[in-house]
């Protein structure tokens, strides 16, 4: 016999109150000088024993009534087997350990609260008479599990798998809980529920209770269609489902949602802008938000001289920005310039001031700065005058460094080129090229498909028929539009009207925003006219970036695969125009290069928890390599060594095949073959791989693994909304603070109703007894 509200059991002392009142009354008799003592004494003498008995019964009844009332209010429970039966109760606890659970209020995080709830569940279960089991599964451990995962996998992933809750389980749980903490991951409940569903399918003779301890953020629970169907299946397994919200209050939160370099050309010694976005996830405006930006420079020669775990780089504080105000739900974007004098994969880090959720206050990005961006320039003219002007545009001043390294070649250069060799160029420019052979055509298409950028400029040498037939090919080729013939642009009626009409494309956006752009002064004399009546098809990937004042397209773009083809239907050299003599050509050329090479510069943003995989040609690299992951506290870098055939994180693919050069694949944070989740990449920060060539050189690779910014949105789903969305699936929603009592109500058999019935019966009996003992006097007396 137990009570839901143990503290109220002190109320049983109130049962002594009737006795106390009786004793007090015995001491505080009212004195009455009475004339008719004769009748009183006669009555007393006659009913003495019966009166004593009735009064005793009445006193006991009243004491019992108070005791029953207290038992009812304290909610008497029974776990007696004759009531509950002897079935095993299995508690399935699903613990949300995403980083939003670190939401800290009043010194305790939601995760701490969840841990407390688990302890409460175990404590309660220990007091049960029947056998109790606990299965604890964290959301992070269930990630990646498909809906068809086997029960064995579910058992493998669980922290506790049907462990019996016995006397020593407290200690076991405490030890386990000390190792548990909220991760930096953004994981939802789906996979965990899927695994529990699998576990439930194995048991049929148990009373199952599923607890979901989470913060119930809108991100995961606002549209719980899939969750609902999983819960429905769990309910079908006759399990009770309790959703326990561990969030105490709504806390404001600021998070860095993005940190990325702009699309400008990257090269050692070339300053680069980095955009950082801060979002206010709270309900009130945030003011005076401090944002610290720092960069870490790694000298190219460091890996040779420094051990992997000691390579810290040179950290410089770039800027400390103060954002005056960020309205609720708004994102503020700030731009800072970083500069790295030498090539390499350098790191930029942004940090926000402390707030309830720390995890999303830091963000990293790794920016790959090559020594320079190589651009292949194929000039079809005899004098290569087009290349000359492009070269000047890429290097407008003697000392200026745009980071672009143009390489001017003849058309014949493409004849011997390979795709691998072309990939060394960030962009390829075809200037007034008459035609191409079949192999270069296919090669360039592969290059573009793989993400390369090709810009084609027109000119007098261009064979329109070849371009239409082989490159445009009725829209199937990679050239954007069919060409007609070269035409002269008639003089403008209005001299102030510019020859070139621009769109807001990134290449020309610089001019669009200018009030008096230089490009308005460019004069176009001749151009290649596209077929009359041609218009870009909606799904062809072709768009017109600039037109002439007569409406004829001048600059076109076609997206091919992952790459881009630009067609400028006039000459680069001042043959058909005077653009090359206009300063705007420099900006246009640099922007064009930046745009064409964007895909190759594309950073590799990764979320924490993503496995890092390194593919290495076995003929060049050793089979052992080192990974570096962020450490904790004083240990900033943790080295993990991988050996072929050792550990689950390192695999040699194709080693059993007859392939002469089997690639080596090493990974960090990948699940093992048995399905065990690895937490090696669960910490946000900068990761490195240190593969060694057979010569002993280090081919260092660096990644930034950041948290999912959406997890920082602390908006929760109100319980009523959630329950209505889950309807008709019957689940019970609890607040963690109130859960201890509610949980007690849920388990065991609550005898409150029986107690209430007994109390009513007792009160009726007491009244009958009191009535029979003349405690309810009838009107009137003797006559």
């Amino acid at each position: 016999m137990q009570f839901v509200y143990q503290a109220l059991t002190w109320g049983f002392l109130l049962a002594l109150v009737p006795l106390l009142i009786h004793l007090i009354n015995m001491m505080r008799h009212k004195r009455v000088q009475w004339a008719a003592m004769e009748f009183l004494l006669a009555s007393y003498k006659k009913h003495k024993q019966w009166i004593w008995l009735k009064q005793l019964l009445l006193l006991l009844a009243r004491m019992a009534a108070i005791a029953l009332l207290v038992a009812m209010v304290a909610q008497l429970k029974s776990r007696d087997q004759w009531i509950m039966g002897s079935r095993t109760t299995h508690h399935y606890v699903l613990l949300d350990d995403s980083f939003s659970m670190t939401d800290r209020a009043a010194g305790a995080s939601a995760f701490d609260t969840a841990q407390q709830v688990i302890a409460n569940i175990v404590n309660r279960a220990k007091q049960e008479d029947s056998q109790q089991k606990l299965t604890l599964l964290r959301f992070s451990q269930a990630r990646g599990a498909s809906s068809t995962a086997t029960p064995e996998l579910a058992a493998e992933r669980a922290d506790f798998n049907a462990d019996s809750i016995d006397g020593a389980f407290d200690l076991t749980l405490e030890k386990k809980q000390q190792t548990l903490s909220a991760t930096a991951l953004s994981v939802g409940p789906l996979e965990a529920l899927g695994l529990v569903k699998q576990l439930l399918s194995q048991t049929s003779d148990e009373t199952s209770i599923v607890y979901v301890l989470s913060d119930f953020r809108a991100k995961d629970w606002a549209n719980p269609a899939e969750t609902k169907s999983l819960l429905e299946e769990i309910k079908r397994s006759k399990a009770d489902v309790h959703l326990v919200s561990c969030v105490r209050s709504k806390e404001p939160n600021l998070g860095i949602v993005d940190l990325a370099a702009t699309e400008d050309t990257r090269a050692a010694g070339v300053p680069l802008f980095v955009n950082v976005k801060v979002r206010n996830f709270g309900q009130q405006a945030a003011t005076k938000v401090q944002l610290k930006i720092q960069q870490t420079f790694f000298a190219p020669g460091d890996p040779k001289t420094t051990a992997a775990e000691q390579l810290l780089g040179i950290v410089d504080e770039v800027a400390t920005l103060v954002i005056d105000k960020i309205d609720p739900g708004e994102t503020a974007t700030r731009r800072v310039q970083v500069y790295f004098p030498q090539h390499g994969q350098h790191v930029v880090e942004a940090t926000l001031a402390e707030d309830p959720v720390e995890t999303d206050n830091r963000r990293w990005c790794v920016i790959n700065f090559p020594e320079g961006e190589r651009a292949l320039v194929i000039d079809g003219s005899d004098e290569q005058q087009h290349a000359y002007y492009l070269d000047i545009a890429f290097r407008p001043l003697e000392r200026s460094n745009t980071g672009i390294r143009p390489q001017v070649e003849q058309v014949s250069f493409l004849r011997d080129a390979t795709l691998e060799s072309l990939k060394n160029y960030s962009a390829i420019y075809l200037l007034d090229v008459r035609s191409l052979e079949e192999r270069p055509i296919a090669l360039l298409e592969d290059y573009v498909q793989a993400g390369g950028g090709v810009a084609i400029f027109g000119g007098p040498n261009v064979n329109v028929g070849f371009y239409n037939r082989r490159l445009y090919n009725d829209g199937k080729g990679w050239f954007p539009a069919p060409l007609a013939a070269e035409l002269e642009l008639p003089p403008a009626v209005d001299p102030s009207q510019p020859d070139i009409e621009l769109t807001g494309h990134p290449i020309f956006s610089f001019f669009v925003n200018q009030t008096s752009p230089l490009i308005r002064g460019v004069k176009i004399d001749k151009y290649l006219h596209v077929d009359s009546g041609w218009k870009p098809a909606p799904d062809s990937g072709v768009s017109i970036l600039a037109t002439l004042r007569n409406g004829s397209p001048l600059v076109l773009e076609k997206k091919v695969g992952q790459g881009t083809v630009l067609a400028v239907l006039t000459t680069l050299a001042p043959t058909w125009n005077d653009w090359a003599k206009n300063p705007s050509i420099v900006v246009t050329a640099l922007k064009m290069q930046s745009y064409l090479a964007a895909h190759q510069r594309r950073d590799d943003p990764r979320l924490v928890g993503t496995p890092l995989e390194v593919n290495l040609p076995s003929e060049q690299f050793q089979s052992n390599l080192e990974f570096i992951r962020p450490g904790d506290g004083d240990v900033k870098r943790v080295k993990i060594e991988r050996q072929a055939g050792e550990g689950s994180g390192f695999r040699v693919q194709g080693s059993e095949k007859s392939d002469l050069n089997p690639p080596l694949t090493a990974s960090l944070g990948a699940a093992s073959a048995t399905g065990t989740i690895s937490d090696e990449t669960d910490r946000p920060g900068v990761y490195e791989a240190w593969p060694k060539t057979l010569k002993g050189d280090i081919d260092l690779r660096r990644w930034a693994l950041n948290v999912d910014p959406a997890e920082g949105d602390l908006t929760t789903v109100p319980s009523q909304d959630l329950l209505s969305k889950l309807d008709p699936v019957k689940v019970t929603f609890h607040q963690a603070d109130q859960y201890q009592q509610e949980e007690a109500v849920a388990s065991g058999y609550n005898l409150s109703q029986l107690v209430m019935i007994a109390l009513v019966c007792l009160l009726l009996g007491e009244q009958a007894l009191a009535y029979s003992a003349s405690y309810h006097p009838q009107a009137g007396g003797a006559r």
Partner: protein
Amino acid sequence: MPGSKRFLHPEAIKRIARLEIRARHVVEGFLSGMHKSPYFGQSVEFLQHREYVAGDDLRHVDWNVWAKQDRFYVKQFEEETNLRCTLLIDVSKSMAYGNGPFDKYEYACTLACSLAYLILKQQDGVGCIAFDEKIRTSVPTRTKHNHIFSIVDALAVHEPKDKTDMLSILRGVAESVSRRGMVIVVSDLLADRPGLIKGLRMLKQRGHDVLVFHVLDDEELDFPFNGPTRFEGLESVDFLNCNPRALREGYLAALQEYLDEVRHGCAKNAVDYKLVRTSDPLDAALASFLSVRLAMMNRY
């Protein structure tokens, strides 16, 4: 005269004055009045003939009857005389009980004075005896109008005390009041019941018309007590600690048995009995009693 104001409640007496006390029997009296005398003598109203016996006054012989029938008959006349009323007021300790406006003693005194005033107003004679174990005060019967003050004074000076001994008191009254008349007993009758009945019977045997006003307090009749109470006897050293609610039923049963016994004894001896609550209006109590009495007298 504070005493008279204390017991003579004018409002009550004024209302009673509208009613007439008509004695059921003729009581001896000196003065002619409204009431028929139980004695036969010179009177304007012939009652009956009776055969002459030796010793009868020859002046009463009806000679006309002798002349016609040759037998001696005497004429008897109904004599109208004053009512001689004796009020017996119980002033024992038990009469001191009461939680209403009046305790039983005050109520009894008020009732007695009201009756005395009424009787004196009818030119009848009234006397008063206050008693407990013995006669405490005795006021002789008078017809003077200001005799009421003597009665009031006699009652006012006595506080209730001691026990009640009804038999010796009633016996004493029966022996001391030679002339037949009306005896009105105002008491709570909390005394030896056989002695009470016997005493009343003795009064009846002496030819008195006996009226009993049984005065009890509401609490004595209803026993509404609640909560632990220590009852201490007014006329005894007995006490009882009890929860009165538990004893109420038995108490009321015992009381009812006692009342029934008293009623039965009174009825058996042709004694008029009226149970009066101290909360009952005086006029109502008297009026109801006198109405009953008038009805009984008319039957004769």
